[in-house]
């Protein structure tokens, strides 16, 4: 697992905040972030394509739009850091990253 992308409708504000939260969470979980390690980025719905990342993070309202691009992590509250941490930790453990 090499790349995580946060997606929102316009790819400007929300997904960017989520990206920053993901980066912080990864640091807390001891996962190295950056090129060659775990890449984290954000984009809008229109720029995404199937296989864009190993994991896509989005809010519950975009679940139906994003599913076709690959494995998704859906947040009920996109800015809830605790929810993100719990869910991300589970996925990372499944994938053997941590």
């Amino acid at each position: 697992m090499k790349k995580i992308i946060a997606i929102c409708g316009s790819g400007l504000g929300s997904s960017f905040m989520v990206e920053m939260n993901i980066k912080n969470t990864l640091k807390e979980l001891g996962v190295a972030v950056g090129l060659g390690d775990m890449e984290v980025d954000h984009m809008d719905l229109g720029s995404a394509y199937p296989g864009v990342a190993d994991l896509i993070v989005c809010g519950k309202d975009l679940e139906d739009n994003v599913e076709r691009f690959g494995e998704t992590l859906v947040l009920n509250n996109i800015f809830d850091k605790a929810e993100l941490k719990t869910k991300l930790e589970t996925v990372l453990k499944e994938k053997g990253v941590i």
Partner: protein
Amino acid sequence: MDGIIQFIIDFLGTPAILIGVIILVGLIAQKKPTSEVIRGTLKGILGFLILGAGAGVIVGAITPFGQLFEEAFNMQGVVPNNEAIVSEALGTYGSATAIIMVIGMAANIIIARFTRLKYIFLTGHHTLYMAAMIAIVLVVAGVDGVLLYVLGGMALGLTMAFFPAIAQPTMRKITGNDDIAFGHFSTLTYVLSAEVGKLVGKGSKSTEETSFPKGLAFLRDSSIAIALTMMVMYLIVVIIAGPTFTQGLSGGQNWLIFAILQAITFAAGVYVVLQGVRLVIAEIVPAFKGFSEKIVPDAKPALDCPVVFPFAPNAVLIGFVVSFIGGVVGMLILIALGNTTLDPMVILPGVVPHFFVGATAGVFGNATGGRRGAVIGSFVNGLVITFLPLFLLPVMGDLGFANTTFSDADFIGVGIIIGWVATFNQAWLVTLLIVGLFSLPFIHAIFSKKKEAPKAA
């Protein structure tokens, strides 16, 4: 000697380089590694240049639309779209916008640190757009030089703390806690929608107690939404203006093909501009967030509008659809007024503002007035964001004739207030307005009984 001065003027007078310098200083201040400093600085400059390239594409696609609309209806048609107007504005007001943005973010931190308005506005693209808006109206008002930057920055900082504050009572209702604030510059219509909800919503059930078809979800993809609505609008104007007139503009290309291509080109331009905006703010916002968290740890982060969408997904769709209907009704009223002495410009319903702003108005209306609140609140929102730009266009100078304008209510509200005061042509009056408003929260903090002793910064 002249060569050196010219070099310095060109260096700092070029907005893209100015942005680069600002980011460079920010990254060095955060003690980032060299590779990160080089990467971030270049990406910021790259973003700004991409923005300019996108502006060219948008102007190329919206200009024939303006001509066609005039031929068809004998009125001027305006498509409100923040990205389009900002990218055009940055051609002339780029340097002023960049400096105002930086001073504004500093002012926001100062306000949050020393007053009760403890909000840090983290929606970076809206900060950029508001900076551009303020730069335009102040320059048109004749303010320039250092005064332009300082007044502009104060005005921007104030909007960044004030608007989240007025949204907070409803935000508490929506999210059920007081931890996050709301930062999206159409707060005036959101609060209006919440107030309308209170008035009409007595006993109305929440939108979330019904199931609602999700067939419109594909419009969440803004490129698709823009392309589709522009296509509809373009086809309407070419059909009324007629093939002969259209093919005069298209240089002989088939009129229908021309209409469809121009509509999608407009969407392409917005896509390019957004890519540029993304690169620019991606380098600025983390620094702003980092500094503000250090200096004002107890501040509430004011976040982008989709923050409220998951709390009421049905209200999101209802808000979008009903607000769009409001926009269409508003447009029809304006067209009907075209034959009277008022002869207004026609504000067309842009799908992006109606989606994001309408959806949010729906959530706010639902929070205070259930289903009825969501429907009526977002309808009022749709009408208001259609009529408000009419009052903004006259204070925007040459950009008032750009066939596009700001779409969200706070940009327009702030523009109208500053622009109206500026029509008196007295720089001191504008200064008094901004300095006066800026000092209010500080005065309030000093006289407030529950004032906490400021901690050492």
